């Protein structure tokens, strides 16, 4: 589903080349002047969940449990024209990414009963201030604007994983896994990307970022029971300085005005 929506969004982005794309905009937009802008896009990255491993009858959690986070980002800022095709942008940006997945273990093909269930909610949100240096190449149809951006900010993640298995008689018996993980980060980011700008000032952007997240606080509550053992506990850690490196990707569109 998400893939289809992503594909649809990409097609919309390509549609920007059409002359009649969108009915608003100002044909008087001038590339070589300073502008305000607003951006809306989608951000994606893979993220490691640092939660206790588990080996259940119908669900496992590995040591390096990964989730794919995807969600919107919104930015607002100003582009200041310097000289020739060179410009400088300052922006504030917020984002919210998540992966909400579930797994239903039906008893059998002809017994529609949820014997096992997995709910996995992973999310992260944050905000950052960013500055970028841009250079605009003007073509006959659109403007191509490569840019390099640096950003700093904060982020918080929230993860809630639940697994239950009702059990059968005489075996396997019922089991469960629950983990709630909250983490706070300081973020730093170096981004490379480019904008494709139409004559109306509407643009698509494509970018990849190398992000470093410094884990500052971590709170974990967990409990689990499998076929042979059980455990529970909580962790509340502060003043951490663990660095985590990830690569993120984003596409979206914006409007210069």
């Amino acid at each position, binding site marked *: 589903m998400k893939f289809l929506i992503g594909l649809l969004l990409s097609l919309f982005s390509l549609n920007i080349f059409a002359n009649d794309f*969108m009915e608003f905009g100002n044909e008087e937009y001038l590339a070589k002047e300073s502008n305000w802008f607003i951006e809306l896009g989608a951000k994606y990255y893979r993220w490691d969940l640092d939660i206790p491993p588990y080996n259940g009858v119908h669900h496992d959690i590995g040591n390096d449990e990964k989730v794919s986070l995807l969600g919107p980002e919104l930015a607002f800022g100003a582009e200041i024209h310097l000289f020739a095709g060179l410009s400088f942008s300052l922006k504030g940006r917020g984002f919210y990414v998540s992966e909400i997945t579930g797994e239903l273990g039906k008893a*059998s093909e002809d017994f529609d009963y949820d014997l*096992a269930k997995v709910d996995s909610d992973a999310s992260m949100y944050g905000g950052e201030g960013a500055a970028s240096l841009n250079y605009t190449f003007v073509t006959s149809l659109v403007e191509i604007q490569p840019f390099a951006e640096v950003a700093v900010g904060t982020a918080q993640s929230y993860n809630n994983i639940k697994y239950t298995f009702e059990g*059968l008689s005489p075996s396997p018996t019922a089991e469960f896994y629950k983990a709630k993980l909250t983490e706070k980060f300081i973020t730093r980011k170096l981004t490379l990307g480019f904008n494709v700008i139409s004559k109306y000032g509407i643009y698509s952007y494509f970018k990849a970022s190398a992000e470093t997240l410094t884990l500052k606080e971590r709170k974990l509550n967990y409990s689990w029971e499998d076929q042979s053992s059980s455990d529970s506990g909580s962790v509340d850690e502060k003043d951490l300085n663990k660095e985590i490196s990830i690569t993120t990707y984003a596409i979206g*569109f914006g409007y210069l005005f």
Partner: protein
Amino acid sequence: MQKLSLIILLLLSLVSCREVEEKFLYDKDDPRLLELERAKCLEEKIYDEIKLVNDFSRYTLNKSYLFKRTSKIGTGTDSTEAQWGVVISAINPGVSMTVSIRKPQEVYHLTYSLADSEAIVDIVTNGTCAKDKYKKTVTETTIKFSHVLRRIIEASTDPDVDPPRYDEYTRNFYLNTEFPALFYYFKGSIVEKKIQNGNSTSTTTYTHSLSDLDCTNSDNNKYCRLTGNAENGTALEIYNCTTVISSSTIYTLENISDNASEASLVKFTPSTDKCNTILF
């Protein structure tokens, strides 16, 4: 502007998408699942409620009903085949009830024990919660169950292929908390189909129903009077019958039978063979 709105909507839907994957954990014939299925079935409220029918004190002495059997061929109109009076004529809580059936010339007193009532409930409970036995639908007060019997007219050479000619007999019953368990027999329907090469060549539907009967109204004497003379002046013939729970406790859905009337949980025996005339 509509296009912009659509894009924003699509972006927002990215975060609201919940991907739920379904998988089947066990083989459908796993005995542990059969036991679980039965246990979950028994958790349905109706299976506690239906035990109320074993409390005979809930029923009203001399409460009377009109039993009506109609038949319909194909999509034709209903014609009435029989109308009898059904009266709760004795209640001995915890032991037995007597249900009297008034036909034009005869009265049948059916002694119906607590054990019979409990057995009917058990059979229906086990049969409707067992896999591939009775088909069932339930409400808060009713278990509707049915089964199909076949009378083979011309056998198939391949056991996995339907016979070229057979009669199919589908009986639908209702067990309702508002009526004694024995009354399942007076409510429901029978559908008889003649099947030839997979096509139905004729269908006859019989419907059994009960409605309240006012025995204070002398017009209903022909249904309510249990002693003395019939309306034509001749003495009513009285028969005392006992009920016997069928030895075939649970019918499989596709049981092959020569005698469709065995599709009843209760037989009326034996003080006299006349008791069998109240069977359908």
